[in-house]
């Protein structure tokens, strides 16, 4: 009885939840690796990248209430920055630069990540500035256009001077080197062989947790409250003396900087970037994670991310064998079934849990 009460105590429950979450994060790749090999661990790596993106977008959409359909642009920016600063591409284009750097261009990740965050934040403000007067749907349309502009610029910036290598993309991006350890190769740790996907997993996990903590702290702060006030009623917030323009720009900048970091990680992880990784579909996928989980609520965003990043892959992997088992043959292409379920899941959630799967506190008092 008393134990039951102890476990329903909010503080205890929260602490227990964090502990379980931390343990799950630590052992997840080993379970996934055991079940489906490195491909599944790789899927988890991508889930973590999406988590960083979703947390960044959650600041803009969930906290400040600014519907952003072009968020992937900041991811693209971070990715291209990392690719340009740590690949042979620039040196082959500019021989003069190559003469200066005989060892090639290998910018340290310690420099790339802050740069990506800063540049994305700057671009976030640049996007934010002209859209400050827009609300709701109008803002969504402008941000959608912005996302497409960035992608199309990346695709066409190979002439007259080849900077992004157009639709061919930039290859041979350096893997992350941390404290002299190359995360791109299998490393030996205490006699264990640890594959690259595992190493990246833990790096991404650390970054995602840092971003998550930053989000939690921002949420319970003067700035976070101001954002939520703007989201709830912009006119009233202004009447309380809030400088809504500045606060919105801040939300754009901080959300974008998380996106930029995720992008830089993506480029180093993949070793290759091309414009096709940054389509509108990606923006929508990230937004779907935030909305499905519960806008403005971190545990909800994490859940939405896990589900939407993992579910399609799990379905893709399981639908073929499930049909084999049920009908003795594969009747429908697993890829189509996957998309069917994905769409169905989104529609069902919006019908029955319009505030998201795990929304922020809801009161059913009296």
């Amino acid at each position, binding site marked *: 009885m008393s134990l039951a009460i102890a476990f329903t105590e909010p503080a205890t429950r929260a602490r227990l939840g964090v502990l379980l979450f931390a343990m799950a994060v630590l052992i997840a790749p080993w379970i996934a690796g055991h079940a489906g090999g490195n491909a599944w661990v790789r899927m988890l790596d991508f889930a973590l990248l999406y988590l960083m993106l979703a947390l960044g977008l959650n600041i803009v959409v969930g906290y400040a209430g600014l519907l952003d359909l072009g968020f992937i642009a900041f991811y693209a920016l971070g990715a291209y920055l990392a690719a340009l600063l740590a690949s042979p591409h620039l040196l082959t284009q500019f021989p003069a630069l190559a003469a200066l750097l005989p060892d090639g261009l290998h910018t340290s990740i310690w420099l790339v990540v802050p740069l990506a965050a800063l540049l994305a934040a700057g671009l976030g403000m640049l996007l934010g500035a002209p859209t400050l007067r827009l609300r709701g749907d109008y803002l969504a349309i402008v941000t959608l256009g912005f996302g497409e502009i960035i992608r199309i610029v990346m695709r066409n910036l190979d002439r007259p001077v080849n900077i992004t290598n157009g639709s061919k993309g930039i290859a041979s991006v350096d893997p992350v080197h941390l404290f002299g350890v190359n995360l791109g190769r299998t490393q030996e740790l205490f006699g264990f062989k640890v594959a690259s996907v595992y190493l990246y997993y833990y790096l991404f996990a650390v970054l995602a947790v840092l971003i998550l903590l*930053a989000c939690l702290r921002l949420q319970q*702060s*003067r700035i976070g409250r101001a954002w939520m*006030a703007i989201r709830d*009623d912009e006119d*009233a917030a202004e009447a309380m003396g809030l400088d809504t323009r500045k606060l919105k720009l801040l939300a754009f900048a901080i959300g974008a900087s998380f996106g930029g970091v995720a992008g830089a990680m993506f480029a180093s992880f993949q070793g290759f970037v091309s414009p096709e990784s940054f389509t509108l579909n990606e923006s929508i996928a990230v937004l779907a994670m935030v909305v499905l989980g519960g806008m403005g609520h971190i545990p909800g965003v994490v859940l939405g991310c896990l589900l939407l990043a993992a579910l399609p892959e799990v379905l893709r992997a399981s639908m073929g064998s499930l049909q084999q088992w049920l009908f003795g043959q594969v009747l429908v292409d697993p890829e189509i079934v996957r998309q069917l379920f994905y769409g169905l899941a989104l529609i069902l959630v919006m019908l029955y849990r319009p505030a998201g799967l795990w929304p922020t506190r809801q009161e059913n008092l009296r």
Partner: protein
Amino acid sequence: MNGQLLKVEGVSKRFGGVHALENVSLYLEPGEVHGLIGPNGAGKTTFFNVMTGLYRADTGQFSLDDQPYRPDAVHRVAQAGIARTFQNIRLFASMTALENVMVGRHIRTENGIWAALTRHRRARKEEARTRDMALQLLEYVGIGELAERRADTLSYGHQRRLEIARALATEPRVLALDEPAAGMNAVEKQQLRELLDRIRGDGRALLLIEHDVKLVMGLCDRITVLDHGQVIARGTPQQVRQDRAVIEAYLGAGAHD
């Protein structure tokens, strides 16, 4: 000797061909409750919106405490020391009562991004003080026990009080209330009156748009009457009540015969 706290002089505002306000002036003394009344469409809310920066006046001078202020941006008016409530309550619906009031403290506090991320000592101190002051204000308006409730789950009367607490959190010199008693029952009105009396006692000036004549006459020290965008009378409640122009405006010409 009481000086003039708020001085608004010669305000005009036109919407196309309509003179919403014509040469309207209004003065507020510290600790005064000033009523702004008039028939529907007289320009009361327009005056409110001009004064608080929502609309820009065509002409007019504004000063608060002998410091001229320009009502050209809503948030700067609040920073100057004028807080308002809305005719139709506008709270931050998804936030708790306490958080609503804490947002009111925003302009009197400093914590930024760095403070939020690191939670250094000074930041924690400020946050704790903000919370304490917000709680005190909730107690002050009489809804202290509802601090953790979501704003949109509060009853109508409590929401009105919360809105006033939130406005008070900005430490205003002048508190402008747009029909605070609208939709209240007799008990709630009496409680509101006691609350406004207490706020007045604390040295703030109150500007009140209100339709409830009993409340206005009982509470206000002075009243300004608007009709068709012009001031047609001003004075104590007694003076205004007997003013011919006022009676005509409310009841139509010839009604006093």
